[in-house]
């Protein structure tokens, strides 16, 4: 009797742990033509965590994050097998429309990529493609999203000016605001600060700390200090494999794998 009780608590814990996962990757393999870019990836990503993905160039970290919202589909000649579950639904299944996945999972890219439109229109874009026409809702959402991305105070007097007039860091926060407008569950960030100066980088990092209250964030970064500063968990990718995935503290202070140790102490990469 007691034994079964213990077992069921264990099961409950397991179920609970499972429930808290936004993404669960199981045996994911990916090929660009003949090149085996991701090898047997297994990763469970918890909700409301900042999960950092680090690794040297060409290790597959960008490929992996682009697979999470199936942006990788845009690259010709890509083959995958294995499973990625988003909230327990297989993202590769026919019933899970890619448009729905990308609505629930926002993405911020390496280079700030605002549309050649006004600041306002950049944020309204996402609402309009989803059929929201009510001016008042759009106006409110634009303000809320800009506030959420810590950009409102800087641009409130010129939201109808072209977005290209903003600085690089502001453009990147605009891109984050553009994501927030759709109330996503997860935000994927693919080296969001690699094209920015240190001050803008710091602002984005502070913003990420605020955003993690509401959103699950997965961030690919080249910058190990950045991963150490902002993330709860870190995955170290090397040659298309996950070498180590653990709490950020553990990865940076007592890594289990010698390759992780070599990488974070700057011996290669």
């Amino acid at each position, binding site marked *: 009797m007691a034994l079964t009780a213990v077992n069921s608590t264990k099961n409950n814990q397991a179920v609970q742990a499972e429930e808290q996962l936004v993404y669960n990757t199981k045996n994911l393999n990916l090929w660009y033509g003949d090149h085996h870019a991701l090898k047997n990836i297994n990763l469970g990503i918890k909700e409301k965590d900042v999960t950092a993905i680090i690794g040297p160039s060409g290790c597959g970290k960008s490929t992996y994050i682009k697979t999470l*919202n199936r*942006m990788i589909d*845009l690259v*010709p000649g890509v083959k995958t097998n294995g499973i990625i579950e988003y909230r327990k639904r297989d993202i590769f299944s026919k019933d899970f429309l890619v*448009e*729905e*996945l*990308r*609505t629930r999972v*926002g*993405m911020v*890219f390496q*280079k700030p*990529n*605002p*549309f*050649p439109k006004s600041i306002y229109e950049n944020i309204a*874009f*996402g609402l*309009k*493609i*989803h059929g929201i026409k009510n001016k008042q809702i759009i106006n409110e959402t634009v303000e809320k999203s800009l506030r959420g991305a810590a950009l409102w105070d800087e641009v409130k007097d010129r939201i109808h000016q*072209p977005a290209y007039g903003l600085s690089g860091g502001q453009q990147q926060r605009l*891109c984050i605001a*553009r*994501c927030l407008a*759709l109330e996503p569950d997860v935000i994927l960030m693919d080296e969001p600060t690699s094209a920015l100066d240190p001050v803008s980088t710091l602002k984005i990092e502070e913003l990420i700390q605020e955003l993690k209250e509401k959103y699950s964030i997965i961030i690919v970064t080249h910058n190990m200090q950045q991963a150490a500063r902002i993330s709860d968990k870190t995955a170290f990718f090397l040659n298309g494999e996950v070498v180590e995935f653990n709490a950020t503290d553990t990865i940076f202070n007592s890594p289990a794998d010698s390759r992780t140790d070599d990488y974070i102490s700057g011996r290669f990469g």
Partner: protein
Amino acid sequence: MENTARVKAEEMVGRIDGRLMKNKAIKGIFLTATVFTSIILIILLYRIISQGAPYLSWDFFQNFASRRPEQAGIKAAVVGTLWMMSVVIPTAAILGVGTAIYLEEYAKKNALTSWIQMNISNLAGVPSVVFGLLGLTIFVRVLGFGNSVLAAGFTMALLVLPVIIVAAQEAIRAVPNELKEASYGLGATKWQTIYRVVLPYAIPGIATGSILAFSRAIGETAPLIVVGIPTFVAFLPSGYLDSFTALPMQIYNWTSRPQVDFHNLAAAGIIILLGVLILMNSVAVWIRNRYQAR
């Protein structure tokens, strides 16, 4: 040590004079080419304007063709060209831009599409007479349009189609991938991305290329001759299946007459044709500058 150096500064400095001479000579060659071209153009324009300008009058626009030069006008040709272009522009624009969007955004890149691509590029270089023969066979004879506005318009549309497709493809290809990714990343469908991101960005390029192609359609003569467009027309078309004449046909007709007066009328017609072409090209330049400034 110095004696063993293979490169000697003194030797190289000594060659500078010679290099500068060559520099100047080459510049002279290019300048001569430009001056020569300009002179030819000026002579041509001077001859046409001095010949034709006195014949430009309100009557010239108001009158139909006539056996008597003093009564002959260009009305039928101007109106006929407008009618023809009202077929060419929508047909070629819709087919051309549609094909370009399909090839760039939808079609898989494989052997078949690259074969189609190669053929489109080759079609752009096929002589216009060949398109005339195609039009004669299909539109005039098989479909039975006769030598009408519709037959000539479709023929001209086919003639300029490859140019428009290639221009539109280049404009679409120039749309930064990051912008498309931003749109897809927000959950947009392919069509929403094309309509809201790709086309607004590509429109200036598409418009510029298309306008240049349309101005070619206005000036082409050979396909009209082959399709059998008459030169002596004393009425205006009242429908797309009516016969008509066009500016280059009228000019061609007048130049082939023996009387000098008709040659002068042809010069006046050429002035009008040139005016239309300059106007269209200016619009293309204006569109390009306007959108580039943004």
